[in-house]
């Protein structure tokens, strides 16, 4: 049973004070300052007046910035969907593997997690660029097809033109999936691993096929795991900075890149602060929506 704090005031103070003070001073205060700045105005090169204006928020609602918000949501959404489509079969395979193999597969999924995000993005650039291995692979097939055509007496294909796989929206999505896949697989795995398997056996015994069993039995049972996997993937994807910065082109900026520009180059802190808080509200909205969805099936 939990103790009330009154029973041991000294111990409570000694235990609670350091983390609470730290959180207040080095987390809540910085966020509070940003929040205050979002209602401020630039009056000089380095001075900001807190005038209580809503101009920064109004500016953030202009079509240009609204478009970037919309684009960020779509990119994060597509990333989450792709992660789910790839991650679900992988999680299913891991959950039903033998215990020994399970441990190895989980380790293999988590290993890239421990590798630096920047390094993983850099590795992806080397593979996707015009003189990267994806293009080399396609070129090989291209030349093969070309010589095959020559063999049967047709004109050979022209020289291979490398595809531009980097610096566009598709590259950003591939990069985000690459980085966030483990976030999706792990919650899915833990939901599938805990599932009552006799229900699947019953479904299979009663004549449903595997696909039908998975869609009608496994997916509803794993719904909480799917919901938390979706949230855990969507939130960091929505606020990602590095992937669109390194893999995206001029038109694939996400909201984080715009925020960075306000603080580092444009030097418009109040506007950047307003954008940061809008991004944060969007994140909280996603969390609240997930909590609402998750509460419903529990009531049945």
């Amino acid at each position: 049973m939990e103790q009330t704090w009154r029973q041991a005031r000294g111990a409570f103070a000694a235990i609670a004070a350091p983390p609470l003070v730290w959180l207040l001073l080095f987390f809540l205060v910085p966020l509070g300052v940003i929040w205050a700045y979002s209602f401020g105005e630039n009056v000089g090169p380095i001075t900001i007046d807190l005038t209580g204006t809503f101009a920064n928020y109004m500016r953030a609602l202009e079509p240009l910035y609204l478009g970037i918000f919309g684009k960020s949501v779509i990119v994060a959404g597509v990333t989450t969907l792709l992660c789910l489509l790839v991650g679900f079969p992988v999680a299913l395979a891991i959950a039903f593997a033998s215990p020994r193999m399970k441990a190895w597969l989980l380790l293999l999924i988590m290993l890239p997690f421990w590798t630096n995000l920047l390094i993983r993005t850099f590795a992806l650039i080397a593979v996707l660029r015009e003189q990267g291995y994806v293009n080399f692979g396609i070129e090989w097939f291209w030349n093969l097809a070309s010589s095959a055509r020559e063999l049967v007496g047709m004109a050979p294909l022209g020289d291979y033109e490398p595809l531009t796989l980097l610096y566009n929206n598709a590259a950003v999505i591939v990069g985000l999936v690459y980085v966030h896949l483990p976030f999706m697989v792990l919650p899915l795995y833990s939901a599938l691993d805990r599932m009552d398997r006799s229900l699947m056996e019953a479904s299979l015994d009663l004549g449903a096929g595997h696909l039908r069993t998975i869609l009608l039995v496994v997916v509803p049972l794993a719904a909480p795991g799917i919901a938390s996997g979706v949230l855990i993937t969507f939130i960091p994807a929505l606020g990602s900075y590095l992937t669109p910065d390194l893999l995206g082109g001029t038109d694939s900026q996400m909201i984080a890149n715009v925020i960075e520009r306000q603080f580092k180059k444009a030097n418009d802190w109040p506007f950047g602060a307003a954008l940061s808080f809008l991004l944060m509200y969007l994140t909280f909205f996603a969390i609240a929506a997930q909590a609402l969805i998750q509460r419903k099936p529990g009531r049945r």
Partner: protein
Amino acid sequence: MSRVAREKPGPLEYHRRWPLQLIVGATFFFLYFPLIILMVFSFNDSRRNIVWQGFTFDYYEKVFKNAELIEAFGNSLTIAFFCTIISVILGALTAVMLWRFRFPGKTAVEGAMALPIVVPEICMGVAMLVFFAKIMPWPSGMPWPLNLGAIIIAHVSFAFPFVATVVRARLASFNRELEEAAKDLGASEWRTFWDVLVPHMQPGLIAGALLAFTLSLDDFVITFFTAGPDTITFPVKVYSMLRFSVTPEVNAASTILIVVTVALTAIGLHLQNQSENKKLKP
């Protein structure tokens, strides 16, 4: 059931069905191919980093002669070390506070402690930038390791709630009667904490320390905003090298970091398993 031929997968043996095997194989290929290429090409004897020319250690030599890169690497390890120590202490205290006490405003405190986990990195990064620029300017030109103070503080702020979550999960399995027994037998509050509770938390503390260390070593975005011109960390340095030109030197430096993180994590997991196995033995 035993009539099913051995070669044929059982009804629930999904990992033995070829469509799933194909997807799992393709996924691991997708996850590992770029990293393996990156590591292999750190040994490539060519400036251009494209076609394999022959084996060489030249780029590792260059990395070790690159004073800035070595300094950045040292900075990263120093920051991760201090961040781990402070985060483990604060995280453990948070976990014990939330696990042990009932107090007014507990739900709000729990929510606030989850904030650093869910707030987008970029928002936290700019908040730290403004904080250390306007509210608490970090004096420049401080001696090592105090010059890294601002980055360490920023890292602790996002790492310690993760540690708290891990330790709290571990505390859920603690039998509170043990604590009461210790107190009945005359142990003081401090003694009970140190001799009864901390040993029980140990696997959680190790896991939390590991998490804090990797989070700190990995972080780019928040460091990017907090770091001054003379406090470059390894990821920030690699980022600027990447922007400037991609040479095999970056591959070599990345390979070193990958090996260091994987080795540290392996050691951590091993320690954790050991301490858990010790508990199981009578």
